[in-house]
């Protein structure tokens, strides 16, 4: 039998078991300035340069996976801070590709 931990619901601490994986987003909502690969693949084409201005919805780069050139788009506007990959690079899932500021 596992150890009981304490779960805070509305300021009351309940003695109970908390299954592994219940809380994963310990850092809060994801950082929208980080553009990560949603799938492993190959960088096909990079469409922005460092210092360039992007608006929400602009295509930042094309990521080849599952027989498609997938469009990776900006989910918020900003300036491109750093481009960390180049065309031809093989990337893993969640790999950081590009940062905005």
């Amino acid at each position, binding site marked *: 039998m596992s150890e*009981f931990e304490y*779960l805070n*619901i*509305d*300021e*009351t*601490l*309940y*003695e*109970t*078991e*908390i*299954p592994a994986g*219940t*809380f*994963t*987003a310990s850092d*809060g*909502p994801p950082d929208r300035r980080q553009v990560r690969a949603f*799938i*492993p693949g190959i960088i096909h084409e990079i469409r922005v340069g460092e210092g360039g201005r992007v608006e929400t919805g602009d295509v930042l780069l094309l990521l080849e*996976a*599952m027989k498609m050139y997938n469009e990776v788009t900006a989910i918020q506007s900003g300036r491109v801070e750093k481009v960390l990959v180049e065309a031809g690079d093989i990337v*893993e*899932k969640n790999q950081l590709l590009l940062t905005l500021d």
Partner: protein
Amino acid sequence: MSENRHDRSPRDQESPSLGARIRDFLIQAASLMKGGGSEALDRQRSKGKMTARERVEYLLDSDSFLELDLFVEHTARDFGMDKKKLAGDGVITGFGRIGTRPVALYAQDFTVAGGSLGMMHAGKIVKVMDGARDRLIPLIGINDSGGARIQEGIDSLRGYGDIFFRNTLLSGVVPQLSVILGPCAGGAVYSPALTDFVFVVDGVSNMFITGPQVIKTVLGEEVTPEELGGARVQTTVTGNAHFYARTEHEAFDQVARLLTFLPANSRQMPPAVHWRPPARPITNDIIPPERRRAFDVVDVIRGIVDDSDFLEVQAGWARNIVIGFARLDGRTVGIVANQPRILAGVLDVDSSDKAARFIRFCDAFNIPLVTFVDTPGYLPGVDQEYAGVIRHGAKILYAYSEATVPKLTVIMRKAYGGAYIAMCSRHLGANFLFAWPGAEIAVMGPEGAANIIFRREIEASADPDATRAEKVREYEEKFANPYVGASKGYVDAIVEPEKTREALIRGLNLSRNREYGKVERRHGNMPL
């Protein structure tokens, strides 16, 4: 040779005698009944699996099996299929009895072309599904198949489509059970997914949409079939399966046991049996009065139901809520209960899904619902919000509100906030709502409530901690009890734990399926 055909004696004719024909039939049938052949059957057994025919034999009452379509053959010609003879086209179908009650059954035969589904194979299954609909009897599918028979192209897709369509039309008409005793991959998994209960066996069952090879190729992730979709995963992680067994025999025993709780179809009441008292009836001190302490709600359930016999469903998944079948006074009831031992018994995404589907199954099959409540609310956090706790949580509200079977609720201890409403409160149509003397029906726990209501006083105080403690006590005295709810008629009766069984049985005897004055509509739009 004779001139006139009428002159010929019957003995001159070359057609075989009836005796020879019967012998010939018996030889052919025996051969077909060997599926892929003796060697293939031995290979199946050496993998620790029963053969399809052994499974049918074990599950059904002896000598009750009426097999259909043993002699069906495929009509495919491409890719060498015209040269292939496939016994029964890889599936055994027919009708039989379990516990003397008739069922429709199919069992895929992995020894014949890997149990792959071709057009005629699917046609055989469709025939017994239609038979289940005509006779209004439960349908049991034993899945053990490599999937679509590629050689038959889109005819196998058609076959799956025909099956899924009928699973859907049968849903809520007759109970549909799926026993996964081998691979069940790709599109094939959608049949079990559409049925009511899925049974899996450790080391034997495997369900997934895309298999390890595809995942490796496309995503570069390495995972074994067992890790991806084995029995443990399906009963603890995904919630796709409802019953876990260590052996095939155990799975079949579970099937038989489940059927004893259920009616044959939605027009019937569940079978009634002779009532028996619980083996260990609950006592008034069954649960700790201290609201923050955990206890195992299964002990409460077993202490109330007939014979302490509780068939838990999906025991390994979303464990903060407990669901299952039991009997009160000899009649089947569906139990839904918060489990304070896990996540303090909160409601969340998975527990809402788990409870809602079970509630709707019970409602479809005339099974009264008995709900036991001890919940502090919903699980907070970004994980839950991003996972859609709003639309998932709504399912349990919908399911209880929609249900017209008798609904009886027992508030054991905490019932706070939205979770109080969701756990079959009177407001969602409970026929009877009982509360134990230690129950607390409130907007939230005293600590949280006092912090909000008396915030200014606490902040302005010279000794905030002391003031807070005082306000918490005040709130607790006023609201952490069943009397406020009882004074408003939200609680029908306050009942001691020891008297709960009696109260529930009386409540059941006084209830029957409701006919609300429902507004005519095609159907509601259930949040999904």
